[in-house]
């Protein structure tokens, strides 16, 4: 099987800083991780490769230090890793991101077509869940989001996917190629075997820029190719606080009486 995984490096912690002028994230100095859902997508790719053989290509678009994410991907079994890094890619919203990734994928697929495209269900920095559907649309391949279980039938070039919806579990089937966005349950990341760790030292990320080798239309990249604009950033206003009671002063009885009063008034205490 020929599998492509698209991963994103995201800032790890809560101590996130914003550039007040542009309203964009200051990435420098913030510890980075591979987006957690993408780790599960990588783990799934690794499991499928072990079972059925094949090849895994991993791509990421980000600043130069995003190559750390690709080195981690090699530990999961990636055979080829590509970093898309260029100032012209910066400031991309989901439309420009899906354009850049889809064009890159088309370029890479010239060598050998992919059977399966794996994405995370969403990236935890923006939580948009838009890039996977966007890339599937651009590639014209069937999209299956929120996958929790993936079964492959490579001889029949078919896939069966369980996806989680609000109402239950849906089981879908499709023929290759398919783009799947992965939830945590699709596969657990294994401890990296030593051989993969050693390989991780040797495989170097290839760096693609806006100049090449992928033939991009410049106007569709980065900030320029992004229809959405950050207009203003501000701290959310709080609603004015109400009354404060100290149990140590008024006692438990009084506190309970006041809560009951509210429950009664809101009509949620009907016998």
């Amino acid at each position, binding site marked *: 099987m020929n599998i492509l995984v698209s991963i994103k490096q995201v800032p790890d912690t809560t101590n*996130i800083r*914003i550039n007040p002028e542009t*309203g964009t*994230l200051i990435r420098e100095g913030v510890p980075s991780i591979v987006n957690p859902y993408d780790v599960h997508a990588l783990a799934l790719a690794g499991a499928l490769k072990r079972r059925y053989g094949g090849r895994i290509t991993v791509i990421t678009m980000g600043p130069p230090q995003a190559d750390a994410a690709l080195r981690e991907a090699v530990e999961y079994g990636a055979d080829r890793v590509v970093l898309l890094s260029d100032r012209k890619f910066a400031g991309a*919203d*989901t*439309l420009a991101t899906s354009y850049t990734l889809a064009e890159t994928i088309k370029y890479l697929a010239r060598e050998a077509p992919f059977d399966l495209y794996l994405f995370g269900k969403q990236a935890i920095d923006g*939580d*948009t*869940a*838009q890039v996977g*559907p*966007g890339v*599937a*649309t651009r590639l014209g391949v*069937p999209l*299956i*989001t*929120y996958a929790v279980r993936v079964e492959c039938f490579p001889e029949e070039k078919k896939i*069966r996917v369980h996806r989680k*919806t609000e*109402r*239950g*579990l*849906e*089981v*879908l*089937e499709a*023929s290759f190629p398919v783009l799947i966005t992965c939830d945590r349950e699709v596969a657990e990341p294994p401890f990296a075997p030593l051989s993969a760790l050693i390989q991780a030292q040797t495989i170097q990320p290839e760096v693609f820029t806006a100049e090449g080798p992928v033939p991009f239309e410049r106007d569709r990249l980065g900030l320029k190719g992004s*229809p*959405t*604009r*950050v*207009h203003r*950033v*501000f*701290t*959310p206003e*709080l*609603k004015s*606080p*109400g*009354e404060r*009671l100290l*149990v*140590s002063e008024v006692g*438990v*009885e009084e*506190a*309970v009486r*006041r*809560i*009951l009063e*509210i*429950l009664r008034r*809101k*009509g*949620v*205490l009907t*016998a």
Partner: protein
Amino acid sequence: MNAKPRVWVFVEQEEGQAHPVSWELLGKAGELARDLEGVLEAVVLGHGVEEVAREAIAYGAERVYLIDDPVLAYYRNQPYAHGVVQLCRKYHPEILLLGATTLGRDLAGSIATSLETGLTADVTGLEIDPESKNLIMTRPAFGGNIMASILCPDHRPQMSTVRPRTFPLPPRDPSRQGEIVREELGLSEDEVRVKRVDFIPKDKTVNLEYAEVIVSGGRGLGGPEGFDLLRELARLLGGEVGASRAVVDAGWISYEHQVGQTGKTVRPKVYLACGISGAIQHRVGMQNSDVIIAINTDPEAPIFRIADLGIVGDLYQVIPALIEAVKREKGHE
């Protein structure tokens, strides 16, 4: 051609059952249409769903575009995206809103890409800029620490997804008149490349988003057993149990119960926060509740900044006494 700008809401339905977020969006979109001097219209796709189209009129749509086709019997990305994109190309809506549900998010990304327009996810505020007439879409950004307002000035439609319960349900008026415009899908089952082979419904779903009362617990419970107490209170009040992310991550309760930025947005009549500090990521999910009651031992806890009634004290003193009092009240003793 109609010169009036069209404000569109995609009405999400499954098996003829509309998701209430669609009506909430019609309520908000009605305000936007007024500010734009435009028309409020709905889009309904499905099979045997004319009733849903009529409901959309009852909730305020002046006109409904309906594609009724067996291929749309259950949701799949390809035919649904195909249908909506086709309608957009024909009628050029100014604005298109969808629910930020599993279905809505799956669909919105595909539509926006096909139309090469911008899409803003999970917005919490929508308004029309009085000067430029652009849609200002506000959403929490970067872990909820700040809010960002986003514009899509040069591309149409301006698209966003909105979580259930972000906007209130508008009044329903079944006597309201509107037009239903039937359109063709123009896609046959042979062309759809994904097939559903099975569907396993959940036995019990936690209906947090539409609960009238939520008794919510955080790390202040001290352990998973604490939720037994909250469950009892929630049951007595006919409500549901909510939780902070800290306790979901700790495995004290399942993710379905999580309220906040990465959980559910809720809007109950009463939200009772027990042992929850009230971090910004929690507050963004529950600050639209009618009444917020907080019980916390720490008088400095940020939850008190938004609580209508803040009780500084030990929840293990207050909640058992409250349970007894509710029981007495319900038994009319």
